């Protein structure tokens, strides 16, 4: 296990470096001019040149790349070219915000999905099953921007039950923050519910038909206990699998939701960094996304192998 983790970590570092290089190259393909982007098209060329010089944007590309890389290795991600504050400070609050949102979404969707999947599996073929399966599928395919917009209009503007934006005023308590995050979390719940329910259902069905269930029932143990002991444990597996495969996709979904709800999270920050050609900030955000993705898949893989004894000692690669 230890060697497995180490190897994965090593590969992850390599992947991150590749990612940084790809972003750097991509961001410099088109002749872009940070100073011009900040000062706008109507500013005098001399002013733009002065600003570019102050930002160090007129140095040779190789020098800029080396500076950034050597700093990043030491943990210094440089200064945002447009906001003139350290990238790490912007990243810190943005990641925290996105994490809060993702957490609320998970806390809502995991129990819902598992319960739905269990119900669908227990009452296979009946109305409950149909509702969960079809409902889940339909909810999954609605793009987040559509569900987000509808939710805002119905619950925030018309009914005024919940706030229009996701950002609670500074210094709000946990309860208030939660209230602000419910609406933006729901589109994420929609997207994930179908997958979790479906896989839990499949696990339920498989477990119900398995030999050990029949044996246990014959022995007189109630179905409920059997389910609790064996099935639930197997229900965790698909959840972890879903989390692993959907993380990358979730982060992308955050961009749209944070946009509509005006939320200063990682997605919104990346979007703005790209529009402003703010390379240090853009590289910082993509790095963080990469790290989150790689960490999540690693943890999910470990968790999966721990919980599923069948593959724990299987061949790796």
């Amino acid at each position: 296990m230890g060697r497995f983790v180490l190897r994965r970590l090593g590969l992850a570092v390599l992947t991150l470096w590749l990612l940084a290089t790809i972003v750097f190259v991509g961001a410099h393909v088109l002749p872009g001019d940070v100073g011009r982007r900040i000062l706008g098209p109507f500013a005098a060329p001399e002013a733009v040149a002065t600003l570019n010089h102050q930002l160090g944007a007129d140095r040779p590309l190789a020098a800029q790349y080396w500076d950034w890389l050597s700093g990043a290795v030491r943990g210094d991600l440089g200064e945002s070219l447009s906001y003139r504050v350290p990238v790490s400070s912007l990243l810190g609050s943005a990641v925290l915000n996105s994490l809060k949102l993702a957490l609320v979404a998970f806390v809502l969707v995991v129990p819902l999905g598992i319960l739905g999947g269990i119900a669908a599996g227990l009452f296979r073929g009946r109305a409950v099953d149909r509702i969960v399966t079809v409902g889940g599928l339909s909810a999954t395919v609605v793009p987040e921007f559509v569900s987000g917009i509808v939710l805002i209009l119905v619950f925030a503007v018309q009914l005024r039950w919940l706030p229009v934006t996701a950002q609670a005023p500074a210094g709000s308590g946990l309860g208030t923050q939660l209230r602000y995050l419910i609406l933006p979390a729901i589109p994420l719940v929609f997207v994930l519910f179908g997958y979790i329910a479906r896989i839990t259902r499949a696990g339920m069905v498989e477990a119900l038909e398995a030999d050990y269930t029949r044996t246990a029932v014959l022995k007189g143990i109630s179905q409920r206990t059997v389910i609790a002991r064996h099935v639930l444990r197997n229900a965790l597996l698909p959840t972890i699998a879903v989390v692993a495969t959907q993380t990358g996709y979730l982060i992308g979904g955050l961009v749209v939701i944070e946009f509509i709800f005006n939320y200063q999270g990682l997605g919104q920050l990346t979007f703005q960094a790209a529009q402003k050609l703010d390379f240090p900030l853009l590289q910082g955000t993509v790095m963080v996304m990469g790290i989150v993705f790689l960490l999540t898949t690693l943890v999910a893989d470990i968790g999966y192998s721990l919980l599923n004894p069948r593959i724990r000692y299987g061949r790796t690669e």
Partner: protein
Amino acid sequence: MEELQHRVDKIRAGRTGLDNQLIDELVAGRISRREFIRRGTVLGMSLGVLGFLAAACGGSSTPSSTATSAAGAVRKGGTMTVGIIAPSAAVNPLTVADEGGLAVLGQAGEYLTWSDDKLNLQPVLAESWSPNADGSVWTFKIRQGVTFNNGQPLKAEDVAKTFKTHSDPKGGSSALSAFAGVLKPAGVEVVDDQTVDFNLDAPNGNFPYLVSSDNYNTIILPANYDYAGKYESSFVGTGPWKMTSFKTGAEVVYGKNPSYWQSGSPNLDTVTLKFYADEQPRVLALQGKQLDVVSQFSASTGQPLFNNPGVKVLELRSVAHRQVHMRTDKEPFTDKRVRQAIGLLLDRPALVQGLLNGKGDLGNDSPFAPVFPSTDTSVAQRAKDVEKAKQLLAAAGKSSFTVTLATWNGYEIPLLAQTIKEAVQQVGGTINLNVTNPSTYYGSAVFGKSPWLDSTMGITDYGHRGVPNVFLSAPLTSAGPWNSAHFKNSGYDALVKEYVAAIDVQAQKAASKKIEELLLDESPVLFPYFHFHMSGTQTNVAGVEPTAMGHIRLTKTGFSG
């Protein structure tokens, strides 16, 4: 009646020749009351005196915009949340170039003068000002008894240092292009503790606008302020608000400035400016009662607010516009008849109705918007005439042509492009649209590296200004840095010089009439319309003073009832 006349005479005796010339125009009925007041503020007369003279001597007045919300009975104190466009970069007086940034600058910072919603100039840190005989030197008297929010007293040298920095080619200021050809750092002179002289490169009748809130970078800062430092940590200034917290990308919170020079101001206790990257979430937040004020939205996004009784919409006649340029040195636009024809294909009232929801003024293919006092409105308004267009094209031998139109995908601009494309189809022309994003369209903003300046046809968005000077010179003069039409006409250049140097309204109008007629004839650039500036508030909010520039003055703002 005699008493009144006596008072008027007394006032006139104490005024300069220029001022009296202006009063003569008013008495003779050659200018309206509104124009009189506007010109008067430029010359440095106080609004009080102007108002009195206008009432006493003036003739008709023309209707103006539905003002700022009346500062009726407002409760003292309170906390307000205002939604503004997110500043696109660090808030630094040198580099701010966007509406969000300037709205933030205008809270803790103040200018020499304030260009208000009626395009009048109000004294702020300058108590009064006046030109010399030919308008080449302007003298400003600085207000006494003002302190910065860090305790330093305001002195003339602070004012001088501010303007020296912004007019310095090496200063890196976004305002440099405004001062190019008008003022050099050496021209800023401290006469004494209370007086600053601006010695201009050439006579300029509209100079006071260049040191007003229109030139939004020029908030007055202490002479010892380090422009390379971080404005965001200090927000030093003389304004009514003092920054209590600033969060990049999210919001800035202000409290009252206890040492503000206007006693009893500001009204509110706290003001929070929340940043919104896009219009839709801003407008939705107003409707959801999460914001008290929303600073700016376009006619299309604000559509749901217009007939909404729960919201107040503040409308300002602004001169922001779109320029449709046609390169005079490239086919098919080398012949001016072709350019005129394109201008004749536009149904301008329909454009204003359709693209702007009626919230705009018609444009007559020159920078002279109807709302400028120096605009000569006797020049006939160009209207749609497809037959005439066809004749002109035939005479020029261009019954069919193909052109690529470049622009970017914001606001109603793609719709305008589409409309032009369809209009041109009617007469056998083909337009291929190349709609990208602002960074691609503007490129490096220099000739040879910018679709904006290199494309054969394009649409560019221009923001509001208190006077048309910059619109007349930069995009249209032979050496203008924004001359996307590559229009080189020495007659035009001379007329612009004439206009800029003119100090009294009549001389300005004489020049503007000739300019308008020349531009209609040559039509290097089409100005289809000027669109209004709109903000919104809840019904219980009063005293909000937006400007078409994007400022939002909250000194008198409060909750009513």
